């Protein structure tokens, strides 16, 4: 259980995030929705301990994140950032093996067991055939799947993803969405997914946390929280939210922007 209790945080000035509380239950898949600048990324960074809250606290089980080393934290929580731009042209296998870092001693090199974990992670993300390729030569969708594989190689029970589909085309968006759903279902990986993509959230998330202006507007089961009213409040957009039989989940069709 990952818990944020009345967390507030500011980058020097006013709070970017004010009095935010969330509970991430084991095995759940939680979406974090909200307009640009609402604090989604900041919330993720607080949940993984990259940022420390100014007020309130974040706990993993009953331990505050502040009391854990980076190495300990990295064995429990892995993160997939929006985009990854390495300064050097690592191979896909090297990128994925970097996920093993928190499990290795200071001078230890990866052994057969680590390679096995990496290969399974590549398998799970459908990127085994890319193992010897250079990361920089991959397409956007392939890169994102490799980064997810690298996070999986960390062998954590929890995965935080920051807009993992933001720079992907429709085909890759659906591919990543089904990958996340499958990992959550089959590997029991707990996930928190910050996204702008309401239909992605509708298709994979069990529950949603909806944010605006650094505060939580609503939280709960996806079918209860994701309504036309929520979309209007978040984005000033009039939208039809309906259950789509063929897709098997709620869909959001934006109709028009409401002025004023």
């Amino acid at each position: 259980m990952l818990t944020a209790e009345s967390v507030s945080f500011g980058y020097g000035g006013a709070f970017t995030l004010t009095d935010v509380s969330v509970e991430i239950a084991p095995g759940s898949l939680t979406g974090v929705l909200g307009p640009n600048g609402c604090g989604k990324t900041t919330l993720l960074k607080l949940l993984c301990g990259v940022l420390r809250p100014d007020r309130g606290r974040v706990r993993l089980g009953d331990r505050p994140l502040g009391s854990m080393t980076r190495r300990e934290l990295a064995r429990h929580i892995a993160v997939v950032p929006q985009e990854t731009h390495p300064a050097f042209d690592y191979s896909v296998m090297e990128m994925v093996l970097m996920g093993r870092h928190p499990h290795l001693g200071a001078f230890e090199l990866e052994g057969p067991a680590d390679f096995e974990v990496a290969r399974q992670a590549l398998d799970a993300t459908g990127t085994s055939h890319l193992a010897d390729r250079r990361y920089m030569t991959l397409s956007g969708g392939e890169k994102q799947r490799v980064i997810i594989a690298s996070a999986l190689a960390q062998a954590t029970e929890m995965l935080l993803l920051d807009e993992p589909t933001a720079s992907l085309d429709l085909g890759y968006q659906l591919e990543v969405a089904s990958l996340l759903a499958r990992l959550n279902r089959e590997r029991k990986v707990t996930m928190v997914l910050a996204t702008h993509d309401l239909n992605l959230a509708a298709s994979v998330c069990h529950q949603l946390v909806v944010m605006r202006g650094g505060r939580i507007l609503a939280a709960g089961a996806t079918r209860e929280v994701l309504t036309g009213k929520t979309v209007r409040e978040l984005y000033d957009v009039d939208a039809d939210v309906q259950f789509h039989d063929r897709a098997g989940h709620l869909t959001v069709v934006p109709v028009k922007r409401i002025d004023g």
Partner: protein
Amino acid sequence: MVRARLTSVVCAYGALALGACLAAPLIGSTHISLARAFDRSVPFADNVDAQIFFVARMPRVLTGAIVGSTLAAAGVVMQALLGNPLATPFTLGVSTGAALGAVLAITFGSSLAVGVLASVPLASLAGAVVASAIVYALATRPGRPISTMVLLLAGVTLNAFFSALILFVQYAADFTQAYRTIRWLMGDLDVGSFAPIVASLPMVLLSLGIFAFLPRPLNLLSVGADTAATRGVDVGRTQRLAFLSASLATAAAVSLAGPIGFVGIVVPHLVRLMVGVDHRVVLPASALFGAAFLVGCDLVARTVLAPVEVPVGVVTAMVGGPFFLWLLVRKS
């Protein structure tokens, strides 16, 4: 897999470095033989080959090996720290600080009688330390990771500022002092004896010792600071260690032999072309290849226009300048 590659690369590059260090003292105006130089049956006082090998040429070759090795390794660390493959050990102002110290000692040392600081190596070391301390103080905030952007800006600005001060001191210098300054800035591996080498060893060994802890964290850091943090790297500590050890290595090299350019960028890139980009392989391979590279460049500097010597910094620049441009063109 990583272990096998690491072992074979270290053996190959180690053999290259060792070969360069043994072959280079044999070549020069007087031809000597390796067998006779190591012939223990002749007393050292009578063995001309051994005297030329060990006394006349070995200090210079060893200096080349140490300076080449530290600059190349420091280049690797700086490039990973700044997340910029075009960074060099001199990017953050260490060498310009050292140069300012040296120029001050050359110009005012004799008249001011400031004791040990009148010695050019000590003054340049002091300059390097001051420059690193300023950049470090500007770029670090307690408890936060270093901003590489601030680090880079602080380094570039300090480089420009110290260069201006060097010009000003040059303007105040007389002809002989100005000439000595220019010669120092070209870099010179001819340190004369083993004493300066021994004096630099503690700093060199300390920085190499710290480098040994850095490769895997540097791999992650060069992927992104936040990513490194979530993969379990203590980013702030890695950055501080990388900055301090690379600065120390650079300061040791520059105070020993002057600012010899391009070693810190040419060698890491050549090595990456041959062995890939994993820092666990690149860092030791660069340290070894850097030694062979600078010893080789110095050999060219000594022999190409013999009996006239070309400054070794000119040779490394002749090799490095076009190579650097080729890298830039290739990247874009």
